[in-house]
């Protein structure tokens, strides 16, 4: 009996391990993506159409860097797609990337949107907007206003631990220092209409329902809500504001790409990266996700452009990323989520 089980197990294990996808095939490129596949798939399909190279995607929201680190030189990953500057920096810090110094890439992407050592490139930018109820009228907001007493009980936001929030807090530390930011966090928390919960669109929904008057949210969600039957009423109830226009400008974040250090299909990976920075792909990617393209000369979609021109905070993203750990500590100290 035991022998039978042993044999069965051995057969099973061999069958399973032979299931690994053959990732060293000629016409393939492997992508690890923080972005959901349905967002990037149309783009990859176009790429395959043009070049005949197949794109394999693995989507995982958490722990991608860990996986890469463990896989080491046996990792099948070629290109990495992320949705936040902090993730790119983490990959860079842990030495999981390799430099891609193709001129095509460097000339397409402006300097402040790529790594100084050529290890990562931004593909799109997004703004962290303040959404305000239309009933408030037109107001020139600053992020600092979120701590203002006049908004007591009127503010909704997502978790303080979410990367988007952490990035914003980091930018505040870079501008005002830690003491000010801790104070701001505590006052911000006191202004909340409810415990931080839900996602960016959920906050706008709450504004629509009268639970609060202002919230934080990324720019592209506005477009997404307008396109959705059920959510359109939410978007119609709010104004989308670009904060801090009278001083440093609105806080931006990026989605980006990088090449894995041990990429097995390097040539194909470079082709994919060049494709993603081409004018056509930039247009497509930005339009699909309702973000701002990064390549000079490519304008955002009509809808996105209709939200207005704005001044972006010119603080280098790498500086913002440096304050990330400090930001987390302050958020914990203020017990923001609790």
């Amino acid at each position, binding site marked *: *009996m*035991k022998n039978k*089980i042993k044999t069965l*197990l051995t057969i*099973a*294990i061999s069958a*399973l*391990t*032979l*299931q*690994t*996808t053959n*990732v*060293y095939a000629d016409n393939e490129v*492997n992508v690890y993506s923080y972005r*959901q*596949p*349905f967002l990037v798939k149309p783009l990859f399909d176009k790429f395959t159409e043009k070049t005949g190279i197949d794109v*394999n*995607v*693995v*989507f*995982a*929201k*958490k*722990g991608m860097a*860990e*996986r890469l680190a*463990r*896989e*080491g*030189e*046996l*990792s*099948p990953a070629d290109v990495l797609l992320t949705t936040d500057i902090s993730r790119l920096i*983490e990959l860079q810090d842990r030495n999981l990337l390799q430099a891609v110094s193709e001129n095509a890439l460097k000339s397409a992407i402006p300097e402040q949107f790529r790594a100084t050592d050529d290890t990562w490139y931004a593909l799109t930018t997004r703004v962290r907007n303040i959404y305000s109820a239309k009933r408030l009228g037109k107001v020139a907001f600053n992020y600092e206003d979120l701590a203002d007493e006049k908004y007591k009980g009127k503010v909704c936001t997502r*978790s303080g*631990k979410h990367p988007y929030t*952490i990035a914003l807090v980091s930018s505040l530390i870079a501008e005002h220092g830690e003491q000010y930011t801790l104070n701001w966090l505590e006052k911000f928390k006191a202004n909340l209409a*409810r*415990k*931080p*919960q*839900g*996602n960016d*669109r*959920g906050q706008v*929904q*709450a504004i*629509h*329902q*009268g*639970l609060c008057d202002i919230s934080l949210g990324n720019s592209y969600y506005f477009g997404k809500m307008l396109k959705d039957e059920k959510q359109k009423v939410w978007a119609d109830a709010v104004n989308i504001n670009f904060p801090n226009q009278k001083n440093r400008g609105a806080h931006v974040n990026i989605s980006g790409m990088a090449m894995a250090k041990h990429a097995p299909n390097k040539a194909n990976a470079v082709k994919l990266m060049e494709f993603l920075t081409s004018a056509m792909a930039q247009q497509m990617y930005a339009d699909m996700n309702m973000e701002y393209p990064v390549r000079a000369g490519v304008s955002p979609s009509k809808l996105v452009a209709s939200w207005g021109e704005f001044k972006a905070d010119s603080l280098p993203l790498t500086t913002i990323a440096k304050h990330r*750990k400090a930001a*987390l500590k302050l958020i*914990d*100290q203020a*017990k923001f*989520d*609790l």
Partner: protein
Amino acid sequence: MLIAGIGASVDLFTHLWQTVLPDYILNTLLLAIIVIALVLLFGVTSAVIVVHTNVYAKQVLRWALLLPLAMPAYLVAYLYTDLLDYAGPVQRTIRAWFAWQSPNDYWFFDIRTLPGAATIIALVLYPYVYMLTRNALSFQDQSILNASQTLGLSAKKALINVAIPMARPAIVISCSLVLMETMADFATVHYFSVNTLTTAIYDTWLGYGDLASANLLASVLMLLILFAVVSEQKARAQMRHQSNRITKPPQPIVLSRTQQILASVFCWGLVAIGFLLPIVLLLLMAIEYSDFSQIALLTDISVNSVKVSVIAATIAAALAVLYSMYQRFSQDKNKHMPMHLSGFGYAVPGTVLAMALLATFGPLDHGINALLTSLGIDKVGLIFSGSIFAIIFAFVVRFAAIANGTVNSGMDQIAKNLDYAPLSLGLPFNKMLIKVHLPILSSTIWIAWLLVFIESMKELPAVLLLRPFNFETLSTHIYQLISDEMLEQGAIGAIFIVLLGLFPIIWLNRVKEAK
């Protein structure tokens, strides 16, 4: 994990302790207590009603009460928050009816709280307690109950003072399974904005990037659970719960009209809230939003899900059988170790387990490849950590506790004297195991298999992290959509998971009936 935890940063730990850790721990304990209290209430009561009373539609209720098992907890969480939130349809309708404008005008319970999360988790997990308790009650020796009644106890008192205590091992085992599942949960509590110890583990690892401290916290969590599990097992070791084969089924208590209504409302309420309402909501969403061309894609993905779940269930069940034999017949002092270890696996959050596996198999793969290279053979890549082997291993590790617990309690039911009779008649030990114990255990083994199958189908975080390219399961598929609050588009996929989970549940029930 423990070893990795040694490198933990004292600074970070102090910082966490001074700020949020006490709240996290308190929340974890509260969550555990409320969930256990609720599953006991839901599970034991419904089991008693179904086994010992003549409640209306008993035959249907018997298996209907199991249905919530098919629902992944995170799915039910999303559905109910959507439904009951301030901006959701229920509150909106109420506001419209009464012309209320703001939250200050009325009171409505806030679902996104700790009690809310605990209730949802309890609604999805109570079937474990229900099932094992029902089983134990059905197979109790009726003559003991009759005897207690002859001695003066009313039927009700006999239940409370004799039958339920005799079912204690089953109740306790199922509660510890529920406890571990609750500890491991991240998706549900995260969605409810309830911060527990598991939140801290994720925070430290992904937020602060400190894997060592995360491991340390995870070890603390494991120790707490180990403590609970071991003390429960020690307390139980004193009792003898074997019963002989039943002489006849328990005599049902006749309920009065009011009692019938109460009992039916209670039981059907559980089924409705835990299963019927969610499935109706999903169907509505699917009809409105989903693209029916998805079905072809979903069939492919379902095959993936089923494949890994079947293999994992088979391995887990086989190991559980081996282990329970070992436990019963071995004189080894440490024979309880595997059970405790498997308890660990169950309580570990899926992502943490995945990391641990990558940490184990990664080096193994690298070693193999290095060896092959040195022998001049081509590299084979990540055959362990990069294939579905890792996923299946993760499932087995995670769900071994369920299989072990189930098969163990089944083994406990076999009278001890049955162990020795065949031997004294000349049957060799091996043959006895195969010819006597296994057949008696067969339905229990089936149950263990089915439980691991259902859990594997629902499991999300471990698969998300460990899967190779182009390998989607149903749970990862709907997760991409859920994670952006696009549940509507994922409704069809969710229905698939539930349907595929239903088959085992109905089977489960058939197996029990056949007993």
